[in-house]
């Protein structure tokens, strides 16, 4: 156990001094430092999690505190996992997830590739592109409803201007066919910079010498792109995709403000559906089982994410 710096120093110092700081005991200090955080997380995350798991086997309802709480076994899980409506919200989530990822990866990577050409003033423009990312998703969703207004909205006007269509002839958030794309567009606008930044970091981590060597071998630019650039940026891209995937799987604030799940339930993503079950229908036990299913899914994805993270860290 002679690895910590203190131990090493202790070996190298005279006995009296060594004793003085050994007295504090690193071990107790470590616990003193870590414990408050762990306790807080246990209280605010783990304890509620265990509570949710327990509730998920009952028919408890918050709005009926006097009703008898019954243990119903796996019934909640079975009914959720055979419910066609919930399956549909999963598909709505999948549509949102897949298209946002495809668009963000394509646009984000292209932008990073272009910015990496190091033209004059690229820092300034990068900063401008990054701005939407840090804004409050709820407020962003809210003001995009204004931009999406038929006729008066800037978005409809721009589309009308470009395609010649009448700006009042379509409503991005009122139309069943268009609403799923409305949320994809806003999320892409907001989060493409995220993918771009990570790709840029990946591109900048590739040493020039590799390209120089390839140039000496007379590899074409096209070949260099596919055999050097893409493979070396891929771990970074994986990280970005996993992170955005997890975030969009649990997407709530942006979409709830933008479409509220409508029209009908065409943009009702999983989290919005769960919110209805838990806080509008107050089926707490049922919603808890629903929540556990989402927990496990996200937890599984998160473990893959951390693996990807460590891979990137090694670079």
């Amino acid at each position, binding site marked *: 156990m002679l690895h910590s710096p203190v131990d090493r120093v202790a070996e190298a110092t005279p006995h009296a001094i060594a004793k003085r700081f050994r007295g504090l005991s690193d071990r107790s200090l470590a616990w003193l430092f870590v414990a408050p955080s762990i306790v807080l997380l246990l209280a605010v995350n783990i304890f509620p999690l265990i509570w949710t798991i327990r509730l998920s086997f009952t028919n408890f309802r918050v709005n009926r505190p006097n009703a008898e709480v019954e243990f119903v076994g796996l019934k909640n*899980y079975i009914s959720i*996992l*055979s419910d*066609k409506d919930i*399956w549909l919200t*999963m*598909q709505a*989530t*999948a549509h949102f*997830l897949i298209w946002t990822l495809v668009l963000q990866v394509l646009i984000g990577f292209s932008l990073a590739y272009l910015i990496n050409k190091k033209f004059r003033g690229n820092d300034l423009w990068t900063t401008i592109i990054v701005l939407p990312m840090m804004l409050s998703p709820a407020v962003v969703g809210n003001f995009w409803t204004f931009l999406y207004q038929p006729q008066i909205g800037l978005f409809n006007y721009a589309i009308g201007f470009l395609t010649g269509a009448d700006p009042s002839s379509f409503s991005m958030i009122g139309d069943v066919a268009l609403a799923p794309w409305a949320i994809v567009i806003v999320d892409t606008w907001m989060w493409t910079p995220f993918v771009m930044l990570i790709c840029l970091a990946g591109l900048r981590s590739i040493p020039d010498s590799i390209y120089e060597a390839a140039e000496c071998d007379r590899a074409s630019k096209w070949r260099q792109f596919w055999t050097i650039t893409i493979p070396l940026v891929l771990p970074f891209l994986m990280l970005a995709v996993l992170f955005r995937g997890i975030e969009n799987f649990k997407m709530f604030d942006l979409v709830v403000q933008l479409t509220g799940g409508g029209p009908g339930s065409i943009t009702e993503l999983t989290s919005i559906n769960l919110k209805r079950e838990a806080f509008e229908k107050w089926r707490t036990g049922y919603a808890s089982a629903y929540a556990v*299913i989402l927990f*496990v*899914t996200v*937890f*599984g*994805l998160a*473990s*893959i994410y951390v*693996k990807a993270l460590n891979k990137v860290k090694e670079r």
Partner: protein
Amino acid sequence: MTRFLDGLLHFRRGAWEMLASVLIAAGVVMLMQPFALVLYSWSFLVTLLGTVMFIIVSHFPE
């Protein structure tokens, strides 16, 4: 010899982690695919299995 065993263990952990990741990914795809209700119904079990497996095998020595 011990080094060889270490390497073997390392390889095994990697392989197991890969298998667990594949299970999790399969579970997630099953959860959200629009083709068969049966796949959706069993998705949670697959994800759960993958996740539990991941937690266990990530404690295998490197």
